């Protein structure tokens, strides 16, 4: 499954947000990639996610493949849509 999503929180994908992504992605069996600027990285690898540096307002594409892909996609989209639990 593939889905484009906008990063809405003010700080973008900073360290804390990256940790939340990895934490969530790690719960699913599916292969989860985040693609940004022509680069696709493994969402379960801390350093890879941290190195993305996606700022507020930019889009990323989630590419998820596996038995629990639908749930994984929904959960990650929720996390991002919820601004990683941040106020703004």
């Amino acid at each position, binding site marked *: 499954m593939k889905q484009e999503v906008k990063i809405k929180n003010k700080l973008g994908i900073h360290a804390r947000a990256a940790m939340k992504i990895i934490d969530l992605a790690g719960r699913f069996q599916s292969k989860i990639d985040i693609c940004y600027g022509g680069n696709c990285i493994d969402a379960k*690898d801390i*350093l890879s996610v941290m190195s*993305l540096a996606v700022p507020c307002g930019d889009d990323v594409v989630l590419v998820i493949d596996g038995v629990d892909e639908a749930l994984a996609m929904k959960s990650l989209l929720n996390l991002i849509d919820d601004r990683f639990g941040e106020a703004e």
Partner: protein
Amino acid sequence: MKLRDILTPGLTLCCDDSIQTKKQALHTISTMIADVDSRVKDKRVFDALMKREQLGSTAVGHGFAIPHARISDLRGAICVILSLKSPINFDSDDNHQPVDVIFGLLVPEAATGGHLEILSDIALHLKDSDYRQGLRMALDSEQMYEAAIGDFDLD
């Protein structure tokens, strides 16, 4: 902003053999930062770093950790690199790999984009096993500084 822009020779400390806990490591980082920016007290830095750790360990795997915080009154972003003779427990959730190299990163309160770039740059560097090896092979602080600002191949 790149990692090498905010590193200075005085802020890399190699091969410490006295630090045995995460708190001691953060305390050392705080003192080093307070020493270079007179507007910032080491206790405030320590409290900020500890607060961030409570949200979740900043261990990133491979024996590295990147404790970080925003501090008001800070003149500019600072990065301290600390290497330890013996790895310590950094409360990481996964494999509990102990940490022996710590990048302490402080950014001014208002910083947003620059902060993101530095963390990203640190993460990119740490993905490179040659870079990680270079840091561990340093025998003194100067060598560690040279290894830290060294170039590597991004492909």
